[in-house]
């Protein structure tokens, strides 16, 4: 029996929680198929880039950490045992690598330039009020700690449950709930004027 088919069978056994697309590609990664890895890379790249940019706030660091993360997925695919979803495993690697990179920088994690930096998402003719709200929210997020920012983004953008977030951040579920509560309170206080526009 070839290594490839063993990998496929293992994946079938362990990966019930992941999506079929994840599993199919990951089986290929285990069989050392470069095409499968490229497809998995492209599948995860957008959400990891968003996750890491929100957490790290430094594009040049995002590229490094993102590629470090997916390189681990390629090199250490045998260490995924299926105790969690594949996405949880990959996000947990990314989170650990990102926190390590932040500690290595050994500088304040607050982004002092956030309010000066133009957002690249909206066209110049986007409605003024909406643009202002997004700028204010980006600035407010930048004032949160990396952990608080991470919980907010994993909850509202990546739509993950608190148990999954706890697994990624390697902390108790109550810590996730507490971080989320404090982050929400800070955001809503920092967004004071804007909030009334939303309601």
């Amino acid at each position: 029996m070839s290594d490839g088919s063993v990998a496929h069978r293992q994946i079938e056994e362990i990966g019930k929680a992941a999506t079929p697309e994840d599993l199919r590609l990951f089986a290929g990664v285990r069989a050392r198929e470069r095409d499968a890895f490229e497809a998995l890379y492209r599948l995860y790249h957008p959400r990891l880039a968003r996750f890491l940019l929100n957490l790290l706030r430094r594009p040049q660091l995002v590229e490094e950490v993102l590629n470090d993360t997916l390189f681990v997925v390629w090199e250490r695919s045998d260490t995924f045992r299926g105790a969690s979803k594949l996405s949880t495993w990959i996000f947990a690697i990314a989170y650990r690598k990102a926190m390590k990179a932040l500690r290595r920088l050994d500088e304040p994690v607050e982004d002092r330039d956030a309010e000066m930096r133009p957002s690249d998402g909206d066209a110049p003719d986007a409605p003024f009020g909406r643009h202002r709200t997004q700028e204010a929210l980006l600035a407010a997020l930048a004032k949160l700690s990396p952990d608080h920012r991470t919980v907010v983004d994993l909850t509202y953008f990546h739509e993950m449950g608190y148990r999954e977030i706890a697994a990624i951040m390697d902390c108790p579920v109550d810590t996730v709930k507490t971080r989320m509560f404090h982050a929400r309170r800070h955001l809503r206080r920092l967004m004071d004027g804007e909030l009334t526009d939303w309601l």
Partner: protein
Amino acid sequence: MARILPFTMDPHRETRDLMPWLITGRLEPEERARVEAHLAACEECSRELAGERALAGEVAELPIATGIGWAAMRDRLDTAARQAAFVPASPPPPRRFTARRIGTMLAAQVALLAAAVTITLRVDAPTASYHALGSAPAAAGGNAIVVFRPDARESDISRLLKANEARLVDGPTAANAYVLHIPNAARTEVLGRLRSDAAVVLAEPLDTAALR
């Protein structure tokens, strides 16, 4: 039907703590039943939920993106492969131009359709300030719009939605468009897959906040 278990802690506090995952539909049935029962009786928590929904929508639609890509990783793999002298580098897959050419030809039509759809939605879109509690699960709003071919079969549409974890939120509109909710993290890829499907005429992201 979920059995409603009593709160093990202060109901305000548990409701307050779990609210974000009520909004994204990520609570266990028992938790959801408890939180919704409390919300039905507590005006303060209901007000807080409305504010929280607004915050959730804004965070999900924040334009955070980078321009980094596969090229750097490919170089790294090549270096590692050379060092290990195990894995031969494979040539990049052949490019496919067909979809792009068809896409260009359809661009004008698509733009017109999208404009019609947007206008229709602007008129019809509910402000969603109130949510009935205890009825349907807290559904996230639509974030994509799709027009199927007139001869598309129900089984094709159903297969497409299931395969892509997309849910029907609204429609058909006057322009025969459907509003879908697609998991935010996968929206770009899912829209790409929908566009390449023979049963789909148009699949575009929908910025719901712009409709408010």
